[in-house]
């Protein structure tokens, strides 16, 4: 099973997502901004990208565009605290789900499972 790419600039949330993936039996790699994420995407493949939108340097939208252009098989789950005005503007077939922060960890787990076609872990 390929790793999950977590693109998130808020450290407590990074920690949470890593722990959640670990509990779900998934390996994960963290990118603190869009630029780091694109670097990682260029070097390897991921099962799914969990993507924050508002980040320094290179924002989530650019990551979406990169994935759509270069890695269209990798599903993207947008996970953002931004409001509908921002998320309504997202229009890309690589974005499979939009999860609003704060999210329910079980909901997010279910979405990841459905997107990656991996069975849900117990718990």
């Amino acid at each position, binding site marked *: 099973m390929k790793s999950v790419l977590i693109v998130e600039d*808020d*450290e*407590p*949330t990074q*920690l*949470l997502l890593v*722990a*959640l993936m670990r*509990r779900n039996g998934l390996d994960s790699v963290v990118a603190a901004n869009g630029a780091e994420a694109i670097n990682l995407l260029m070097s390897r493949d991921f099962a799914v990208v969990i993507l924050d*939108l*508002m980040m*320094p*340097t290179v*924002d989530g*939208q650019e990551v979406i565009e990169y994935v759509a252009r270069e890695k269209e098989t990798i599903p993207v789950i947008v996970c953002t*605290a*931004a*409001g509908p*005005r*921002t998320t309504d503007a997202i229009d890309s077939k690589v974005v499979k789900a939009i999860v*609003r*922060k*704060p*999210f*329910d*960890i*079980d909901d997010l787990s279910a979405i990841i499972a459905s997107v990656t076609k991996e069975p849900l872990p117990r*718990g």
Partner: protein
Amino acid sequence: VADTGDRKPLRSSGRTAAIDFADELPLFIAAVQDYAIFGLTESGEIRSWNSGADRIMGYTAAEAVGRNFSMFYGPADLEARKPQRELETARAEGRIQDEGWRLRKDGSRFWANTVITALRDGDGFVRGFVKVTQDLTKRREAEESLKQSEEIFRLLVAAVKDYAIFMLNPEGLVATWNAGAQAIKGYAPEEIIGRYFGTFYSEADNRAGKPDLELRIARAEGRFEEEGWRIRKDGTRFWANVVITAVHDEKGVLRGFTKVTRDITERKRADEVQRALIEQREALLKVEEEHRLAEASYHAAQEANRAKDEFLMTLSHELRTPMTAIMGWARLLPTLSPTDPVVPQALAAIARSADLQAQLIDDVLDVSRIVSGKLRLNIQEVDVGQVLNAALETVRPSAAAKDITLVTSLAGNIGSIAADPTRLQQMVWNLIANAVKFTPVGGRVELSARRSASRLDISVKDDGQGIDADFLPHIFEPFRQAETPQTRVHGGLGLGLSIVRYLIEAQGGTVTAESEGKGKGATFTLMLPRASSGKAPVHLPTGSRYVSEPEGVGRKLEGVKIVIVDDDVETRTLVLAALGHAGASVRAAASAAEALLELDRELPDVVLTDIAMPVVDGYELARKIRERSDSSGVKVIALTAFSTGEGTVRQRFDAYLNKPIDPFSLVDSIAAVVSVPGDAPAG
């Protein structure tokens, strides 16, 4: 002795010796040039002729002598037998004087003043006449022209229609009246001449003695001029320009007054119309200006609205972000093994996120208080060094996380200053936290302070990303951040610096920002004027306001009986745990009614109550407790998330504590209230 040698030779002038005036009289007469003097017989025949007669009449003696003097009279005089009648009169009365036209030899007229004197012999019989004639043509011409010009002037005055020109006698009675006066005032001359000129004034003016006053002024100053309402014969008013001039004779005696009055009602009306037009135009310009201002303020409001929208979006985002970690961890932690090494990290992450969120809410509330004018300062003497260190300590963990060197440079003894200690620490903390936030890993932030006789300067200098020159002027405006929400490098609401500016200005100081530009670092300087409050310095707790150190809590509330009243079960649970941990004996009540039942069972030392509760709120509960005869030893403490109504809270409660609750400071606060002896509630 008159030398007559060069004169025309006189008849019988054979002698050159001294003149015997009696003998020589005929010689003198002959020499007189200015008067025609000639002798007449009883019938008027000319017998003698002097040189003056030559000059005036144009005849030589030879031509004149022997002819009748009637040749000097014109046909009309002759027809009236004037020459004969004059001789008869002279004969009867001894002399006759006359003025009239006479004829010269060349037929031209001259205006003559003539005196014919009868000459009598020793017996009294008239033997002839002497006639003396003076040519007064020039004088008469002057008189005529004067008379003519006076007449012209009189006619002119009389004919002037646009000006009322008339004379008043010294008492103010109308003496003359022109056509203009009649036209303007409506009186015919016979109706008005002899009447007092007060007739032209309103009753009120007359009662006030205005007409007399005007004459007194004209008399004293020579002239009086004014504009005002006057009354026509028909009672209508007109707006008059009036000039009254005092007229004195050559001896300085007042002879009366000339009064010149113009009806300028139309002009006044025109002036008023023009003034109205100007006013209208000014009003229009004003309206346009107001419209322009309204438009500008509309655009400003739109801009402010847009900024607020953006702010709300940001606020939502910034509040949701720490919520994500708090809620996520709250759900995830129970599913993990207690020995999982991530647990302590998770707890620290929750604390950090909660701290951040509380800070955001505090900022929003501060701005709300500032905007509504409800922010209160508690000015007292503050130990500056202590405040600076406290602020620094608060930031130290985040600086350490980014490997940023914190440097302090306090020049000598900084001493104390009058300020709100909490707010001063908040400002300094805000500037240092900002500097840390905008300085890359491994950077340097320097806090320095310097005092002079009149002020205290506190500077925070970093070598971080600096401030763009375009943004620098706006850096203290609320809701402003250099980045747009989508690309922001740094979280936060963009309120911190606007709060700092408000707080420092409310304390009479200033805050300035300097930066050489992007990538060149920034320096923020607080300047506080020095004015001692005369109070003792206060000391502040250090460290985070929301996550205190657990050590030191001890059993501070050992044996203290507490009833906690809150309709929120989570709050009750947290408070029960925290206070119980500190040794207190705690009972919980979910409503005011339950709380009163608890009081009936056993009186506690402290009632800790929420304010907003269904049915009976905290205020009402406090009142009911106060009403009990046995409750004098019970301290009532409010626990509220409300930031407004602090005054009311202070009055009704022994203390008030703000939510969110920090369990450790809650213990400290209750311990402080309990340690205060006394039975009567404050307020």
